[in-house]
Each structure stands twice: as structure tokens, then as C-alpha cells.
């Protein structure tokens, strides 16, 4: 049952959305209340865990070298990798958050999902094959290809770890809240279970196990969501107009759900948030890392083609699911609404729309299935994050900076595993520490940093011949620090988290990306132009060879290590 604090939490999250202060508030599952233990859901989830642990055992036998650990030996096909990328990217928050947003305000949910998709063509057109051709294990391999290793790697590791940390906290807190409500487990235990399972996948099975967890989860999520959307459309003779008409009739906002609401406030925020999503996707370390698991640039392109297709298809489904929830849940208010009263909102909070709809169209067994899918989704995302965090430490910091590239594969692998355990413990600790905090801004912040720090450095180092180490590192840090600072000064942190009075935020827009990304590019340009050191001249002279490799794939790392 909905407590007062929970309603406040939800109201806060919704308030943020309406203010347009955090487009990513959909990534926040808000405060939830513990529900009765759901044994069907636990059984289904148990089956998922059993299967994935068997896969991990099989993967462990194949994970012998550092290359196996980071890239599954480079033997994943484009189609498999496309599904794994989709599994890595479609978080529980986007499934439950977007369908919940559609349920609450209709049209705005659509704007939201479009934003999360547009980064993919950018990766496809500009980055995918160049990344695959230049890289080996991490995106730092690409950025540092012709640059001084130590400074570039230190920057790349900072960029990766900061993005991973914010993304991870949001996922862990979401996981705890979600599992509390779905399975009736205590928050702390839920977070610990997630931490332990993700550590086991990554520690023993490395990239191979992580990839398969992501593939299985993507298939489960796509199947479940397809079934729900079809079940909804079936009731309306597959005529969306009939579905919308009924929804407008029932929804408390009536016809307003058919047009854009308050999600987009001012044009500057709209553009800035759009840039964060569009270019941030191309700077997420756990996504970039997936490009090194395929054997060639051809397969890398196929991966993004499939990933874009699945993710776009999934977002169309969430839109139908949200509208389906508006119509179908009102047919049995006692089962889904607090005290059976439509005005009091859904049991368990606004993000439960898709979960309740699962019950409405498929009964308790399907509800259990969708709950298990939501749990699996979180595991798949946090495993990918942990793996990329571990690689940044072991490959970029330990093997390249600390050992100057002299570390042998066994040592590097051992460091990755130790880091995995440390990251798992830190993630659980942070998840528990942030339980009662508002984490709505964190995913958006991760995107802002990815697009202001990682993306400009990657883009300029690969595509601009005059770029130098000094320029790239200075610009990268400018992007990192400015995006972080401006986010703290914006309403979503300054007012919502630090509890300063409303209207006191110094930075008035929803995302810093427009400013921080521009600052990063400018700094890279100016510092590189002014840099005429010997090292800079050497780096420029190495560009033609780098370009041959990035454009034609000549000399690219083959299915690594074997």
C-alpha cells in the first residue's frame, strides 16, 4: 500500500519531469513500498539465474586470457552483439519508466523514447567501424592510438569510471526499489543479491557470460513486451485509433494526453538534452566496449543495425503498453489502484503500469515472468557496467599506465578480477547509501559526461589530424568538470537534492550538454592548435597511418588473442 513518503517521492519525481528539470527522471523508480512476496516471480527469476549461472560456468572454461575477459575472444556475431547491445541499453528504468510516463501523460512518453534512440544512428554513421578498426579492449585504445599513453589513458579511465559510477548508482537504487515492490524482498537484500550475481557473472564468465546474460534478457524483454502490446491491440481490433479514443475517454487528463505536455519547457533545454542523448550514447564506455567483441568492422555495423532496430521497436511497444495500461487497469480498479480509487494512483507507484498490465493481460504467471524480466534487465545492465569499469582499471590504468604495457595477460586478468570484486562491493555499498536519495539526475548526468568528455576526445582523435595529446586531455577534462559542475548548479541537483529554495539554481537548463560539449570541442581545438611541441609533431605525423587503419580496417586487431 502506498505510504505518504512514497507518494511524496513519486510526486517529486513527477514534479521534476513536469518541470523538465530531468528528462531522465524516467530512470528513477522513485520510492516504493514493500509488497507481499511473489513466489511465481521468484520461481521464474530463479530459473533465469540457474540458466545464466550454467552459462557462466561454460563461459568460465573459455575465459583464460585478458582478451577473453574483455571481448569474449572477439567471436560474437553481429546479430548476437546487436541483441546484447540492446540488452545492455534497454534498462528496467526505460521499460517501466517510459511506459509509466505514457500512462501518466501520454504523448510525452513518446518524446522521451525518441530521445533515447537517436544516439544510435550517430554511432552507426560516425563511430562504429572506426572504433572496431582502431580498438582492442576499451575505448581508450582508440583515443590513445597515436597519443602519449599515460595522460590519455588516465583521462579515459576517469571518464569511464565517473560515467559508470553515476549510471551504476541509478541502477542499483532502481534495482532495490523495484525488487522490493516486485518480489517483496527487503531493499538491502535486493541490492546485495544484484551485487553478488553481477559479480559472479563478470568474475567467472567475463565478457562471454555478460554477453549471454544480455542476449537472454533482451529476448525475454522483447518477447514479453511484444506479447503485452499484442494483447492490448487485440482488444481493440488492432486499431490504435480505437485504443486512443478509449484512453482519452478514461484518462483524467482526457484529450491532453494526445498532445505534448510540459516535458519540453524551453528550446535551449530541449536542444541541450537532445545533444546529451544523441552524442552521449556514443561516449558510454560499456556500450563502446561491445564493439570490440565482434571480429570485423562489417560485424560491428551489423551490430548497431540490429541494436537500433530492436531498441526502436521496443520503444514503440512501450508506447502501446502505456496506453494499454490506461485503458485496461481501470477495468479493475480494486486490483491495481490504491484503495481502488483512480485518483489515488497505481499500487506501488506510477512506474508499476507495465507490471500491473502484465497481470491484467496474462494473469499471475505472466506477471511473474515480467517481474523476472525486470530483475534480469537490471542484472544485464549492471554486469556490462562492472565489466567496463574493471577494464578501465586493469587495461588502461594497470597494464598501460602502471606497467607501461609490459603486464602479461595473466596478471592483467587477475587485476580485472580483483577490480570486479571491488566494484561489486562499492556498488552494493553505494546502492544502500543512496536508498533514500533522489537519484533521478544521475543517468542524465552520466549521458552529459559521456557526451562532453568521452565523445569529443574520441571524435577528434580519430577524425582530426591536428589533434594532440595535450588538446585531447585538456578538452576532455574541461568537458568532464564543466558537465559535472553545471549539473550540480542546475535545478535537478541544486534544488531537488541539495534542498536549496526553488528558483535559486544558477544554471537554468535541464542539461549542460550544449555548453559543456561545446567547451570541450573548443578546448581540444585551441590547445591542439597552440601545441607545437616535438610530441605534437610526432602525433600529427602518425595520423595518416591511423587513418588508413580506421578507414580500411587494414592492420586492425583480428579476433583478439587467439
Amino acid at each position, binding site marked *: 500500500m502506498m505510504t505518504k513518503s512514497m507518494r511524496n517521492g513519486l510526486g517529486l519525481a513527477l514534479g521534476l519531469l513536469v518541470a523538465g528539470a530531468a528528462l531522465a527522471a524516467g530512470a528513477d523508480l522513485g520510492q516504493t513500498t514493500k509488497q507481499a512476496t511473489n513466489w511465481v516471480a521468484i520461481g521464474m527469476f530463479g530459473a533465469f539465474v540457474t540458466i545464466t549461472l550454467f552459462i557462466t560456468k561454460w563461459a568460465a572454461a573459455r575465459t583464460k586470457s585478458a582478451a577473453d575477459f574483455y571481448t569474449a575472444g572477439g567471436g560474437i556475431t553481429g546479430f548476437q552483439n546487436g541483441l546484447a547491445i540492446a540488452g545492455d541499453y534497454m534498462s528496467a528504468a526505460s521499460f517501466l519508466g517510459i511506459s509509466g510516463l505514457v500512462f501518466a501523460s501520454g*504523448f510525452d512518453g*513518446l*518524446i522521451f*523514447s*525518441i530521445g533515447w*534512440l*537517436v544516439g*544510435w*544512428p*550517430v554511432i*552507426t*554513421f*560516425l563511430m562504429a*567501424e572506426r572504433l572496431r578498426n582502431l580498438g582492442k579492449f576499451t575505448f581508450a585504445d582508440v583515443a590513445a592510438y597515436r597519443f602519449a599513453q599515460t595522460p590519455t589513458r588516465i583521462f579515459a579511465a576517469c571518464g569511464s569510471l565517473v560515467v559508470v559510477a553515476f549510471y551504476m548508482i541509478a541502477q542499483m537504487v532502481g534495482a532495490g526499489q523495484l525488487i522490493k515492490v516486485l518480489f517483496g524482498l527487503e531493499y538491502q537484500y535486493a541490492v546485495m543479491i544484484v551485487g553478488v550475481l553481477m559479480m559472479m557473472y563478470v568474475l567467472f564468465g567475463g565478457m562471454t557470460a555478460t554477453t549471454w546474460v544480455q542476449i537472454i534478457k533482451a529476448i525475454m524483454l522483447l518477447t514479453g513486451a511484444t506479447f503485452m502490446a499484442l494483447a492490448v491491440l487485440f482488444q481493440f481490433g488492432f486499431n*490504435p*485509433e480505437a485504443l*486512443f*479514443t478509449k484512453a*482519452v475517454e478514461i484518462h483524467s487528463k482526457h*484529450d491532453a494526453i*494526445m*498532445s*505534448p505536455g510540459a516535458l*519540453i519547457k*524551453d*528550446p535551449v533545454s*530541449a*536542444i541541450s538534452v*537532445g545533444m546529451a542523448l*544523441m552524442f552521449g550514447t556514443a561516449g558510454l564506455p560499456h556500450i563502446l566496449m561491445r564493439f570490440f567483441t565482434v571480429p570485423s*568492422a*562489417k560485424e560491428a*555495423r*551489423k551490430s*548497431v*543495425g540490429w541494436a*537500433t*532496430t530492436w531498441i*526502436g*521497436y521496443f*520503444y*514503440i511497444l512501450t*508506447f502501446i503498453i502505456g496506453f494499454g495500461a490506461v485503458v485496461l487497469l481501470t477495468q479493475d480498479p480494486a486490483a491495481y489502484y490504491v484503495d481502488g480509487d483512480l485518483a489515488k494512483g497505481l499500487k506501488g507507484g506510477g512506474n508499476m503500469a507495465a507490471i500491473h498490465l502484465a497481470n491484467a493481460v496474462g494473469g499471475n504467471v505472466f506477471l511473474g515472468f515480467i517481474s523476472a524480466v525486470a530483475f534480469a534487465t537490471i542484472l544485464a545492465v549492471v554486469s556490462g557496467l562492472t565489466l567496463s569499469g574493471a577494464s578501465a582499471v586493469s587495461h588502461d590504468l594497470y597494464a598501460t599506465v602502471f606497467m607501461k604495457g609490459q603486464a602479461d595477460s595473466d596478471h592483467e586478468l587477475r587485476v580485472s578480477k580483483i577490480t570486479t570484486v571491488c566494484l561489486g562491493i562499492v556498488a552494493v555499498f553505494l546502492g544502500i547509501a543512496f536508498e533514500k536519495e533522489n537519484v533521478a539526475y544521475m543517468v542524465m548526468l552520466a549521458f552529459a559526461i559521456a557526451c562532453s568528455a568521452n565523445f569529443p576526445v574520441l571524435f577528434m582523435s580519430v577524425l582530426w589530424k591536428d589533434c594532440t595529446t595535450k588538446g585531447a586531455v585538456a578538452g576532455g577534462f574541461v568537458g568532464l568538470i564543466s558537465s559535472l559542475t553545471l549539473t550540480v548548479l542546475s535545478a535537478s541537483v541544486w534544488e531537488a537534492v541539495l534542498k536549496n529554495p526553488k528558483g535559486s539554481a544558477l544554471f537554468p537548463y535541464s542539461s549542460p550538454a550544449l555548453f559543456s560539449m561545446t567547451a570541450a570541442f573548443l578546448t581540444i581545438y585551441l590547445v591542439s592548435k597552440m601545441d607545437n611541441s616535438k610530441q605534437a609533431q610526432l602525433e600529427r605525423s602518425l595520423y*595518416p*597511418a591511423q*587513418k*588508413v*587503419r580506421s*578507414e*580500411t*580496417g*587494414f*592492420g586492425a586487431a583480428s579476433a583478439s588473442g587467439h
Partner: protein
Amino acid sequence: MKDEMKGDIAARIAANPKYEKFVSLRSRYSIIMTILVMCVYYGYILLIAFNKEWLGTKLGAGMTTSIGIPMGVGVIVITIILTNIYVRRANTEFDELSAEIVKEANQ
């Protein structure tokens, strides 16, 4: 392959006039596609920012569905289609061109 030989071949690739032509052809194509996607996306977002009413207009008399909904779904579909068009062309035409250039340098 030794590094020197690799460098040799790489230099020959770079010297081939076909290489420059190929790189600029593909770069132009990927930049045009990027601009196309940005126009579609930012066009839609700016439409929302500046003209919410128009997006809320009904598709036809007596209908509930507003113009903005098929447009929004259209943006998703166009994104998927453009991405796959690029992947198809890059994986056939461009890959053949690039393989040919590498082969010529190896002779």
C-alpha cells in the same frame, strides 16, 4: 607480418588515389546521413518546443489520434530505416571498395 611491411603497405594504400576518393565518398555519405537524422530529430523537438498546438491537431474530423503521434512513431521508424540503409551500403559497396584498395597495395 612485420611492422615495417605493414607500414609499407599502409603508405601504399594512402598513396593510392582511389583511397582518398573512397574515404571522401564514405565520409560525405555518413555526414549527410548524420545531418538528415539531426534534422528529423531536432525538427521534431523544436516543433514541440514552439508549436505544441499544431502537433495536437487531430488527424481527421471526429478522430482522436493527433498528428504528433504518427509523426513521433515516424521519427523512430525513420531512424531505424536510415541506420539500416547505411549499414547495408557500407557492408556491400564500401567494403568492396576498401578491400580492393587494400588488395592493390598488397600486390
